[in-house]
């Protein structure tokens, strides 16, 4: 296995199927750090950003006409 494939596998493992959610996690924690550094209360920020990002990634989802059980992981 080449170093490039190993790097790709590690990135895939850490980032997962949806890179937007990995980005949201980084933004949630990063923004919290920035607001804390300004001396403001920021405990509420990470939940808001995380849930907003989750909601945003679901915006195109629709129930399928036939929601049969299959083999998705």
């Amino acid at each position, binding site marked *: 296995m080449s170093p490039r494939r190993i790097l790709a596998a590690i990135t895939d493992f850490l980032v997962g199927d949806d890179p937007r959610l990995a980005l949201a996690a980084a933004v949630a924690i990063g923004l919290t750090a920035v607001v804390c*550094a300004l001396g403001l209360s920021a*405990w509420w920020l*990470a939940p808001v950003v995380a849930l907003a990002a989750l909601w945003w990634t679901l915006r195109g989802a629709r129930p*399928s006409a036939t*929601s049969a059980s299959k083999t998705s992981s």
Partner: protein
Amino acid sequence: MSGAEVSLALSVFLACAVEAVEAFTIVLAVGTTRHWPAALAGTGAATLALAVVVAALGPALTVLPLGVLRVVVGGLLLTFGLQWLRKAILRAAGAKDKHDEEAIFAAERAEAAAAPAAAGFDAYAFAISFKAVLLEGLEVAFIVLTFGANQHDVGLAAAAAALAVAAVLGAGLALRAPLARVPENGMKFAVGVLLTSFGIFWGAEGAGADWPGGEAALGPLVAVILLAALAMVAEVRGRAAPEVAA
């Protein structure tokens, strides 16, 4: 046992049980279709590889300063948790196919039967079992390590993981069939909620935030994430399904 310890043990147990069920299905399919010794050798080799990962990363995590550890662990858990939760919401809303161990078992058996037979040691059975156990186990190994290191209780996290594997293996060996009756989709939803909550809690704390009530804020946070996730399920379920061309 404190509330945080109970949540830690529950999160690790559920995550580990879900992944163990999935790995068990694949090993069982390959073992019954191809060659049990090769399938078990693949399982053993992957378990050894996971042990090496844990042994190598465990001490490395403990030398990180607490603030840095919480940011790293919180970020990882939040990423994993949001991914689990997104899929669980889509499944619960009917927007993604549900995970079905019997269907996966049948598909794996068909694939294993179609692969060319090997004389002597069955490299196919070894490779498929190795890959299944390693891939399913890697995320659990990270969850055990990160939860354990952050709570200074790797022993509790490891015990919860071992208990989950033992329970799945016990049930699987007794039934000798895929564990289709395990409520996997519900368990994944619960794991998604817990990982997301812990990720937010530790990530924000590591970034410098002070939670009102300290560790006691974790309970309400889990409740908020759960309620928000259930609301998202209801909203997605209420959307119009795409029209299917006749």
